[in-house]
């Protein structure tokens, strides 16, 4: 332990500068999101991740956001264990029929104001899983309102970060 800690003292930090905020994400948010809510949230957001049928690829990359390279928490973004503590639901997967109710209930359990970010191509109308009668037609938006899509299969941590940072940009007053 001492050896590992000692070595860490003399190493440069791994954390990288943040990516530029995703312009497309900003445009999506500007069109849809309540300005008052954005001002109220300020600079900290609690995120509850909900896997609604993903292949687990998105989860791996969302996990990576917490590693030393991306260090999500430095931006005031953190993952929380309960929807009741959350400001943002980060949803992955095409929404399977078997997860539909759980997703709707998680949304209902999240206090307003709240935002929904859908990450991964299959959240948008099913992606590669579109056409199956075991997933909800229309993707996440058919079950709960989506404020922001982050595309990719899976989106890279950089893409996820660029999208999530758009949530923190205060609207011009």
């Amino acid at each position, binding site marked *: 332990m001492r050896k590992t800690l000692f070595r860490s003292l003399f190493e440069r930090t791994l954390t990288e500068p943040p990516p530029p905020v995703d312009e497309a994400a900003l445009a999506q948010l500007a069109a849809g999101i309540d300005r008052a809510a954005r001002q109220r949230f300020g600079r900290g957001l609690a995120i509850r991740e909900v896997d*609604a049928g*993903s*292949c687990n690829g998105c989860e791996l990359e969302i996990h990576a956001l917490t590693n030393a*390279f991306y260090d999500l928490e430095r931006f005031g973004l953190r993952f929380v264990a309960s929807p009741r503590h959350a400001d943002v639901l980060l949803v992955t997967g095409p929404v399977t029929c078997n997860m539909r109710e759980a997703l709707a209930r998680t949304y209902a359990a999240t206090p307003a104001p709240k935002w929904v970010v859908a990450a991964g191509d299959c959240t948008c109308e099913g992606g590669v*899983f579109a056409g199956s009668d075991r997933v909800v037609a229309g993707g996440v938006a058919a079950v709960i309102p989506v404020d922001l899509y982050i595309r990719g299969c899976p989106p890279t941590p950089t893409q996820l970060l660029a999208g999530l940072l758009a949530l923190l940009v205060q609207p011009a007053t």
Partner: protein
Amino acid sequence: MSVFDAIIGGYPAVAGHRPWPRFVIDSAAWNRAAEGLRDGAFVLVGYWGDADRVHLALAEPTYASGCVLTLPCPDGRFPSLAVTHPPSARLERAIQDLWMLTAQGAADRRSWLDHGRWPTSAERAKADYAFLPVEGEGLHRIPVGPVHAGIIEPGHFRFTASGEAVVRLEARLGYVHKGIEGLMAGAPLAKAARLAGRVSGDSTVAYALAFARAVEVATEAPVPPRAVWLRALMAELERIANHLGDIGAICNDAAFAIMLAHCGVLRERVLRTANTCFGHRLMMDRVIPGGIGVDLADEGAAAIEALIRHIRDRFPELVELYDNTASLQDRTVATGRLQPALAQRFAAGGVIGRASGRAIDVRRHPGYPPYDDLPFQVPVREDGDVNARVWVRIGEVEQSLALLSLILSRLPSGPIAAEVPCPATAVEGLALVEGFRGDVLVWLRLGRDAQVERCHFRDPSWFQWPLLEAVIEGNIVADFPLCNKSFNCSYSGHDL
């Protein structure tokens, strides 16, 4: 003489099924197969439905050879195997849900993947799910999921505890059932390969490889040597990345976060190297039927060599940290012990089997190129606890690093893909590939125009999830995350 002679004697092999033979049998032979499974004469490696029939893939205990048995069930019924061989129970319940067939004599009649939410749901699936009864004084129940506290896949766990000790855990899965096998039916090869790579995103290389190998064995397609070796390179990168993630995550679930932080850095470096080499961090859609879609980038070999040097420089220190931290060992040693006999009975593959004395690795037997030409060790332990599963992963990271070096040093040049020939008649293929969780099975039937008629995926987790319920018994509730993480079974790969 093979162990299967007693079952298949007299039944002709179906033409165009490779590499193992397939036999269409009757219920008498089916019952003999059930007896053989019960007695451990051979191993259950797959059990899936089709229109009006069920298939059973069996292997010798060494996995050197195997066969597929097909039982037609024109009246929609087949004799239950689960009655005498419990490891087949969930597969059998899934067959009933997906193919509307009935397993006669099955003790557990509950649906499994069908939660009563599909347009085609069976009536029996619409009732409330009846968890197994637990009786006793002062017992309490803890329902968990499907939405969990962490960033993990959805599933429901029903704990019954007496004070702190778990009396029974029952899992209910199927929440991420996407109907992948339904989408595969009628899909052209390119679309089918993309779907195969998304059965379980963490094992995308393993699944894409198993699918490609099943197509290639069915059509007798040649694969260029360079593609064969680069596939192995990708597969070992995937194994290292996942094992590093798991080692860190297990320690984190014992509240030892520094291991997660350091392993997370190493894992990120593996993914970045994969991106440099093949243009995708998880290497999705890189393995395709007939070869690979993307050649190793010019700077790829140097990037992998640098990665190997970096992990070899850092990893031993982390292993030492794990080994020397008494408070961590206190959590992992003797926790969640899987008895070798149970691992054997369920044919548990991967780290879980190998940490409980089951020395099976399908890269060795039945084996596939280029591993038949590569020396590597298969780490095995007998103690079967969380600690053993950590050490097997550590051993496998070291083995895979050595394999990466060997593969790079012997990488052939030449083309990276060949065309898959269009079969003149329907052909069938089966492939077993060692993913980071264990043996992934893909079985498929291709039509004349090389469209997929039927494709089945069997994740190693089918034979591992039930064992999680066994190992947690008597452990405290707080050790469940630790046990669960040390198993790290797939939800998506299982639910399909």
